[in-house]
């Protein structure tokens, strides 16, 4: 299989810069997920690697060989599209074997490869059907089969699960992870769904407005986000942010006053902060406790409760904060209208400076 390297990749459509100086290394056999909100350039980046779009500037290398001038088919990649992009007038077998037919492989070898791929994906009994006679999940598998048949160096996936229903999506997620292990392949996967990113990736690339915000293992992004954007994007429900001001900076620490007057002391964290800076204090919903915390507490009135049995989502609001989400394990007897105190610890909270970067 293969490793990929992107060097100073830029892409411009007219005057609009959609990809800005992206540098990225994908290791052999790695499962890399590009994640970000819609319009962040993640699909464009994938299409640049695939060769479906031309680079404005920069270089793309696979196994040390520069490939950005090659035609899509010559790059040794295979791509699975969001809409599956199956050829409607071909049977499943014809769909899967099309690339090999174009490459003029002999029929026996095409049949063999198609059958092998169909076996991996449990599609053997559907080989003679047209795509319209298949369910969404089966169509998705055909699209993946079409990629497998080509035995590519790298698999590219462009939001392949977004057209499936929730249950099937979870099942396909696990199947894809299994497939990644079975094929020992390098895979690049684009999604806007951070749960897909967290569950499948070896490495996540978070993009915003064509810029790489952070690259790292899923839990590294969760535990040590570089900035407010990554902190807010990774994790579900999203992190709660509270506006505040630096009210004091001292040796190896800072004191923050939130807009409701709560005073928080951050030992060991002051970065380049100075008194009067606008900062944001972040706590993940699952890191709040419904009791006064060791390092501090916030107050709010409950306006909605979602009880799922094993877990409870509590939505609070206060004068200074429109929404605070708390995710508690187990069933909590909180009622709408209750005023509750929620606690946090400094070890599990975050501070973002005026530039949005994490204060460390």
């Amino acid at each position, binding site marked *: 299989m293969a490793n990929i390297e992107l060097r100073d990749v830029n892409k411009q459509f007219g005057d609009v810069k959609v990809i800005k100086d992206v540098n990225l290394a994908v290791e052999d056999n790695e499962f890399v997920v590009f994640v970000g909100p819609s319009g962040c350039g993640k699909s464009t980046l994938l299409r640049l690697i695939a060769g479906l779009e031309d680079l404005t500037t920069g270089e793309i290398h696979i196994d040390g060989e520069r490939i950005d001038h090659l035609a899509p*088919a010559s790059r040794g990649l295979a791509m699975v599209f969001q809409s599956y*992009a199956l*050829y409607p007038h071909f049977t499943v077998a014809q769909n899967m074997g099309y690339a090999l037919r*174009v490459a003029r492989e002999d029929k026996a070898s095409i049949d063999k490869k198609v059958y092998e791929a169909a076996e991996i994906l449990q599609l053997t009994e559907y080989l003679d059907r047209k795509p319209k006679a298949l369910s969404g999940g089966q169509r998705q598998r055909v699209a993946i089969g079409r990629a497998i048949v*080509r035995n590519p160096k790298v698999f590219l996936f462009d939001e392949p699960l977004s057209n499936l229903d929730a249950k099937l999506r979870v099942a396909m997620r696990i199947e894809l992870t299994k497939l990644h292990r079975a094929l020992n392949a390098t895979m690049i996967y684009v999604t806007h769904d951070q749960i897909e990113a967290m569950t499948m990736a070896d490495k996540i690339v978070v993009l915003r407005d064509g810029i790489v915000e952070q690259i790292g293992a899923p839990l590294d992004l969760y535990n040590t986000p570089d900035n407010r954007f990554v902190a807010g994007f990774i994790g579900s429900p999203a992190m709660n942010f509270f506006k505040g001001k630096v009210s004091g900076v001292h040796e190896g620490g800072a004191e923050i006053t939130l807009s409701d007057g709560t005073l928080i002391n951050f030992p060991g964290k002051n970065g380049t902060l100075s008194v009067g800076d606008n900062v944001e204090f972040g706590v993940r919903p699952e890191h709040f406790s419904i009791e006064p915390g060791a390092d501090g507490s916030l107050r709010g009135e409950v306006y909605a409760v979602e009880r799922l049995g094993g877990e409870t989502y509590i939505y609070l609001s206060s004068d200074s904060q429109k929404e605070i989400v708390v995710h508690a394990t187990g069933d909590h007897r909180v009622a709408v209208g209750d005023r509750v105190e929620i606690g946090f610890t400094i070890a599990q909270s975050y501070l973002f400076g005026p530039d949005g970067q994490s204060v460390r």
Partner: protein
Amino acid sequence: MEKKRNAGLETWLMHIFLVGTALAVLYPIFMMVMSGFKTNAEIFGAPFALPKSFNFDNYIVIWNTTDVPRYLLNSTIVTLISVFVLLITGTMAAYAISRYRFRGSIMVSLFFLAGLMLPLRLAIIPLFVQLKAMGLVDNLLGLIFIYTAMSLPSTVFILTGFLRALPGELEDSARMDGASELRIMVQIMVPLITPAMVIAGIYNAVPIWNDFFFPLIFIQTPENKTLAQGLTSFFGEYSVNFGVLYAGLTLAALPLVVVFIVQSKRFIAGMTAGAIK
């Protein structure tokens, strides 16, 4: 319950309307076919009665003593070749306009649209001069050129709409599979718009087959005449024999009716494409 009864009534009214319309359209055709089996005396004696016997005397007369077989052949040649060339060039033009971004693509599509707005008959004199210079007057090839050019705008217009609606990911996917641009067009995209091609084909074949004007201007010798033009000679020579004229008209209408019936499923599929997913 009340609502259901209303819905039933609506369906009935709709059916009555549809049956009425169908009758209004079919009755003249029925009259034409029936009159083709009658003698002149029968036609004038009892115009609306069924023929006394269904014999093919009139058709035998047409086949053996007139040039109608020749006209039929000429019309078939002109229509088939025109539509064939039309669909190939029209599909290629529509494909370029709808699937590629290139400098001047809007100008090209406007050029075709302009063809829809200008009646070719207005240009008959320059056209005649041009064809004469090319040596194509009184030549079926001249008609084929005119018909192909005349029908291109509507064909490009119809096919562009269908081709635009095809998802770009299909093309991308074929590109990833290593297919060349020509191969993508021929093997992947064009097979998906066959209903539209049937529409464009029939839509243009009917006026070409029925056309009277251009053969009248450009064709002089009897052996090059087309059917619509040739049948007018009956008005002179056989003005007494309406039975033979009707038989000739039936013969003229038959091929297109057959084509339409054979292709009607695709035609309707094309007409309703996009209505439901």
